């Protein structure tokens, strides 16, 4: 290599080194996810249970749930929304939490219509659909189950799709309901002692900011978040608890006014109920007990 060639090469090399390099990303603070493992009870898996003398079998149980996780020390918050067939075990998680203890909440969550923006809640509409959810069920969940009579100023969609088959002697009744349940796992709503709880006001929805997470509670299960990993807290899915207190399957069966053996949403809405405008609304409240953390 001649001297002039070397000079030219050196010049090129020097020039090419003038531009600095874009720095690579720094390592982010260690973070992970807090999860909930939804375990169906025997009744939720389809084994019959008794209510009002009826032998009740769960044939479909699809839910829209939101998981909230709160860092105990970091004040961090993570969430996500899922649609799951809870007749089988399901795992959901809230990502983006700093390493350390975090409280976990699971709530049944409807999709709300924002009156001011005139649109549905896009974030909640963007739920993760877990395997096993049929397309027809997805469409059923998307349809509004509540619309104010006067206009489309308030509306929400279902958070629970349930099909129950009841048998008593020769009588057979199937209940197909799309329920508008907004509940906290440890909320008193729907408990045997809390049927008149003011959280079950009418109409549901309204102006509340559905994206605002509920505050963490002392009773919420705590998991120890690990970096780049998920740690699950166990939750149980218990449809039989819905019928444990004041409402029984017999009331639902009685709502079959046309005698076709199928009780649908319209018949539930038309049927009166204690302390509620309709049997459907009563179910909306009672299904608040569907999910419960498993106490250690």
């Amino acid at each position, binding site marked *: 290599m001649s001297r002039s060639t070397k000079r030219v090469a050196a010049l090129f090399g020097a020039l090419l080194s003038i531009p600095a390099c874009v720095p*690579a*990303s720094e390592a982010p603070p260690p973070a992970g996810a807090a999860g909930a493992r939804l375990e169906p009870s025997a009744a939720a898996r389809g084994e019959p249970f008794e209510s009002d003398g009826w032998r009740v079998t769960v044939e479909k149980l699809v839910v829209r749930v939101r998981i909230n996780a709160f860092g105990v020390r970091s004040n961090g918050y993570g969430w996500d929304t899922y649609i799951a067939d809870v007749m089988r075990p399901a795992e959901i998680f809230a990502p983006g939490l700093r390493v350390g203890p975090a409280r976990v909440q699971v709530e049944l969550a409807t999709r709300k219509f924002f009156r001011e923006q005139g649109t549905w809640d896009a974030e909640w509409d963007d739920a*993760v659909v877990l395997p096993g959810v049929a397309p027809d069920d997805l469409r059923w969940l998307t349809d509004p189950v509540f619309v104010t009579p006067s206009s489309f100023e308030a509306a929400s969609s279902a958070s629970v799709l349930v099909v129950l088959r009841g048998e008593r002697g020769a009588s057979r009744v199937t209940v197909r309901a799309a329920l508008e349940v907004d509940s906290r796992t440890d909320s008193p709503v729907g408990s045997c002692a809390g049927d008149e709880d003011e959280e079950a006001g009418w109409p549901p929805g309204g102006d509340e900011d559905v994206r605002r997470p509920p505050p963490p509670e002392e009773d919420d299960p705590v998991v120890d978040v690990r970096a780049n990993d998920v740690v699950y807290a166990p939750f149980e899915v218990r449809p039989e608890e819905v019928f444990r207190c004041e409402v029984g399957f017999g009331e639902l069966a009685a709502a079959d006014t046309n005698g076709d053996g199928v009780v649908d949403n319209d018949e539930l809405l038309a049927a009166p109920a204690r302390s509620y405008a309709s049997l459907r609304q009563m179910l909306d409240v009672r299904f608040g007990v569907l999910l419960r953390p498993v106490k250690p």
Partner: protein
Amino acid sequence: MRAPLLLSLVLCCAALPKASFAQPAAPAEVVPPKLLDEVKPAYPEGATGDASVVLEIVVGADGSVESVDVVEGTEPFASRATQAARSARFEPARRAGQPTAAKIRLLVSFHAPPPASADPPTAPPLDTRPVPTSPAPPPPAPARVAKPADVEEVVVTGRRDEPRTPTEHRLGRSEMRLLPGAFGDPFRAIDVLPGVVPIVSGLPYYYIRGAPPSAVGYFIDEVRVPYLFHFGLGPGVIQPALVEEVALHPAAYPGRYGRFSGGIVAGTTRDPPKELYGEGQIRLFDAGAYVEAPLANGRATVGVGGRYSYTAGLVSLFAPDVTIDYRDYNARFSWALDDRWRLSALAIGSFDYASQVEEGIEEVYFASEFHRLDLRADRRGSDGATTRIATTFGIDRTRLEDARFAQNLVAGVRGRHRWPVSREVEVELGADVFAERYSGDIPNRYSVSRRAYEEALELFGARVDTATGAWASATYKPRPGWDLTGTLRGDVFTSDGAAAVGPSPRASMRVPVTSKVAFLGALGVAPQPPAFAIPIPAIGYRRLPGGLSFAYQKSAGAELRLPWRFTLKTVGFHHSYFDLRAFARNRNDIEIEIVPTAGEPSSPTQAYGLEVFLMRKLSERYSAFASGTLSRAVLGSTRTEPAGVSPFDRTWVAQVGGVVDLGRNWRASARYLSYGGWPSDEPGVGRLPPFHRLDLRLEKRWIWGEHRFMGLVLEGLNVTANEEVLATTCIEGRCRHEEFGPVVAPSIGVEGAL
């Protein structure tokens, strides 16, 4: 009383750098330019003795003088000769009977007036005797200053490798530099052209015939440049000394260009010099230079240049926690293997960085760099055929907020061959393949929100995108001034399993109606893969979301040659765009969402309007230009969607300007720009107020030697500090304008050339 002068001007034609790989053996087909007007430069006042000045002049295909460079001569004669040459008028050079641009050398001889003479000073006309025509290409011998009686061969420099289209607009080197408000940046100068509608004053991103900036491709020597300006608003990343001309193709582009729906801005580098050449600028915030020199007895050239900003140091004086930095480099090497083959390499790169230290941690807001290396082999045949085989390598890196880092490796090959089938027909065939490998930081699924994770996968997920294209183009020139061009081009795009095919037929024509009027027409289909509203290196949409965008381009107009060497070009256009990606406008914010959902195509757009461009070459002593655009861009104009005006629609853009050579190498230029406002978001408000801007430029040069000069440039964009209204806010019936700015950009620079 002054004595009569005896001046002799001899037209000399000199070989140019390109000649070094040219072939002298071919039969001569080039007729050199012929001087039409008599030129009489006056003998400079205060000067003494005889003097000679050799000028290098580029005579355009229309016969006008495009540029004048002093090859040899001293002041004050050089200036006087330059002024005279700028006003000269030629019959253009002809190759195979067709007008073409040519570079010639002109010797201007000054003779001191006899002291006793009482006659007024006169100058003899330029010698217009016939000169030998050159073979094509020209001989490799290095050019020297011609003696008065010498006549060297013509080098036709009509950028024969750079096909022209009838409806294009083209700015030469000297024009780009003289435009006030462009700050010498060749690519920024295109906003003087009709059809180019600025988003916001000073921001060098434009809507062209209703198409957003994402639909406009920028190229330098057929190499696509990821971005042209530092931080969007800053200086250009290509050294002005490297650029010979810039062409705007708003429709029916040459076949070698594609993959953009809204237009092509194509820059061409200047020919390698035969002698040491360099330029530099020192400005308030940065300094740049480019130097190129011949090696190996003229068979090779090497050029290097770049820009270095000292903003980091300046900003730290008053904001020590803030870092703003940018720099770039340009380099070129060429080697003539023999009389026909030349190997060359072009390297360009740029770096931008902005950060702030917060609580002891440096937070990077934006960092980006790109590098391109283009290696080519060019062959020029004896029959005028040209061939290029090239390969491009590149690397892009970007760092966004939230510590997102992305990288893109680029590799591509292309080849084209253009040859004259007959005296009237020229054909070009070509193909290119490009592959881009994207990668970036993907966070752990559990450590970030699902939305952030999915966005990262969508934008930074590893993948390889390819674009493969081929084209065939034929140009028929049955008579002088005619140009009928048909092109068939097709591109295939793939991205992570998705694929799309984009056919792109094009046709254009220039048909003389009279000796001074020509009809212009263009039709074209232009496909494009999804692209961000403003290109960001290393980040792109994955899997071609929403499919390809398409533009259907139709335009027709006329070109008129007016007195005093003015040219008027007026074109009416109607372009239909489908599935383009554009900005969102939210009151006074212009949103550029870098999220996957932004890849969803927008409504169809119909853009139509009328463009008018009146210009006299800015290199003339007195020159002027005016351009106007009347247009309308309508969104959602289908049977199923309601039509609405585009939020960025400006119904008119007008500008007028001029350049004056004040003598003694003082040159002043001004430009007045005005455009209509956007439609307001508020119902019942109508359009926002129009915007007006005045740009000024004043230059003083001290010239010595051949190319050497030192210049002081004072330039200002929006010197009257006008504010621009970007939105109107109405509360309880009372409306208030949301003003932006004023964006004022003063510049004091020193530039020089070797």
